[in-house]
């Protein structure tokens, strides 16, 4: 599961709603991929002023068979880096590092699971669902977005798992409302022991709260701004409670992006809680 650095050729770019689905020939990355991991993509080309890679959750990887050695990820246009990326075409080459990060942990025993995706956050949940189902677990999806065009993976979800509930904040598709409005019912219906979620931080936090209320665990894949993606720079940290009960800033690129929602101190993201290990030493600086 050690990451590799390789130049991958774009096999296809498909526009899906507001998103762009990339299929890239990258055998090295594909070889050791596990759901929940991400790939870091160089943007801007030669002589670019953008030094840092952009991170994208892996939507899938096909080590063997047809499309052997390809990976998939889904890009939403955001700023200059993603704007450059979505202008690439089949045949263009991308500078890739991956697979990176700690993947979703599979339950020890086969238990029912609810998978909750927000926007492009559904992408990494599709290969996870396949894995869970192969492992014998019942899987149900909740796929949400602010509006219909920002939904992703509804069909793919239907294909792998039967039950898919769709929500949109504006009601342009599925149930009007948020994923957490329909999550409690889904937990009860499926007798889920675990929830897997990927999407905006606010959604992950809300999912964590619901999970807590139903005393089930929630594994969530977070998005923190990353400079290196490989664990050397310490830019991507979150305040997380450790096994010893004390909290530390941990790197979401290597110790995450998947965390136990109950361990993340959501209130303190973006601040420096005084009880954090080593916060006392910050006086001077």
């Amino acid at each position, binding site marked *: 599961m050690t990451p590799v650095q390789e130049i991958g050729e774009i096999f296809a770019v498909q526009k899906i709603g507001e998103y762009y689905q990339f299929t890239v020939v990258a055998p090295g990355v594909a070889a050791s991929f596990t759901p929940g991991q991400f790939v870091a993509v160089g943007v801007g080309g030669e002589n670019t002023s953008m*030094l840092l890679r952009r991170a994208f959750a892996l939507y899938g990887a096909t080590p063997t068979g047809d499309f052997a050695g390809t990976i998939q990820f889904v890009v939403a246009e955001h700023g200059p880096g993603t704007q450059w990326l979505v202008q690439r075409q089949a045949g263009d080459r991308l500078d890739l590092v991956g697979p990176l990060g700690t993947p979703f942990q599979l339950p020890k025993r086969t238990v029912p699971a609810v998978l909750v995706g927000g926007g492009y956050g559904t992408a990494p949940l599709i290969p996870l669902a396949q894995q869970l189902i192969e492992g014998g677990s019942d899987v149900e999806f909740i796929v949400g977005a602010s509006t219909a065009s920002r939904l992703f993976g509804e069909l793919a979800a239907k294909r792998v798992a039967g039950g898919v509930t769709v929500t949109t904040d504006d009601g342009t598709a599925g149930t009007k409302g948020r994923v957490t409005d329909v999550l409690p019912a889904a937990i009860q219906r499926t007798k889920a022991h675990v929830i897997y979620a990927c999407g905006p931080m606010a959604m992950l936090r809300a999912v964590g709260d619901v999970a807590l209320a139903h005393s089930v665990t929630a594994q969530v894949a977070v998005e923190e701004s990353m400079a290196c993606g490989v664990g050397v*720079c310490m830019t991507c940290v979150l305040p997380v409670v450790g096994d010893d009960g004390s909290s530390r800033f941990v790197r979401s690129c290597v110790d995450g992006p998947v965390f136990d929602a109950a361990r993340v101190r959501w209130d303190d993201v*973006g601040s420096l809680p005084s009880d954090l290990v080593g916060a006392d*030493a910050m006086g001077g600086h």
Partner: protein
Amino acid sequence: MAELTTTLGSFVLPNPVLTASGCAASGQELHQFFDVATLGAVVTKSIMTRPRSGRATPRMAETPSGMLNSIGLQGPGIDVFLEKDLPWLAEHGARVVVSIAGGHTDEYVALARKLYGNPAVSMIEVNISCPNVESRGQVFACDPAASGRVIGAVRRAADPKVPVFAKLSPDVTDITVIARACAEAGADGLSLINTLLGMAIDTDMMAPVLGGVTGGLSGPAIRPVAVRCVWQVHQVLPHLPILGMGGIRSGLDALQFILAGASAVSVGTAVFGDPSAPARVLAELDQALDARGFASVADAIGVAHRSVTEQAKEAE
């Protein structure tokens, strides 16, 4: 095949390319991309006496050909470092430059003592771009006296076999004044440069991007400032070895620093875009030296000063 061996004081390196403090953690992660033992040395993240949480996020902002960071020296503290990180580096055959940081002179001294006699430590880099708690948080590296005090104290406390380098900040009116103060205090050499103080404002939030408000600017954007600092210091202290850094991304970038007077270079921010950058820079530098007919790195150090001295002579 140019001879790549170079020296930083009494520390003999097989080649002149190192990592930069805080841009390679303690080597483990980069070892996934290249063998860290093939570098001149690994420079560790600045370590302090106690564990430090570092600053609140966001801790970085990308800027044109650069980036801002406000990590705030997050780290486990010297004891964990000595127990976990240093042994790993030794086992993997890496030469190690340990970067130390503190808020008081005695913190630096305590760290130097902890490293005393440790065979895994090839050199100490003293990061004095830290607020001096004893003088209203003014950064040591911005005051020649404070810089000299810290460096002198570390030099006295540290293992005499281990060279002590002072890492200077470019955010000063005259870097040669600080360089001289460190040299006189016993520094065996200088690391040039640390980041420039900068900031970015989020025009949507209408607030500073960084949790720390201001942060350190690094990357190719600052290379011209770094080359200038190396040039100025080598001009006034031609015999003091310099570890040059600041925006190095290619072998030719590294060569600029060597021609300006650096005996070796650190590759920092470039690692974030290319995790194997240090190994690549080394290969490219090797080629560049050969292409220019240099028999050794030593022959290239400071060569760019000649042209100017000659012109000056002619002018007379």
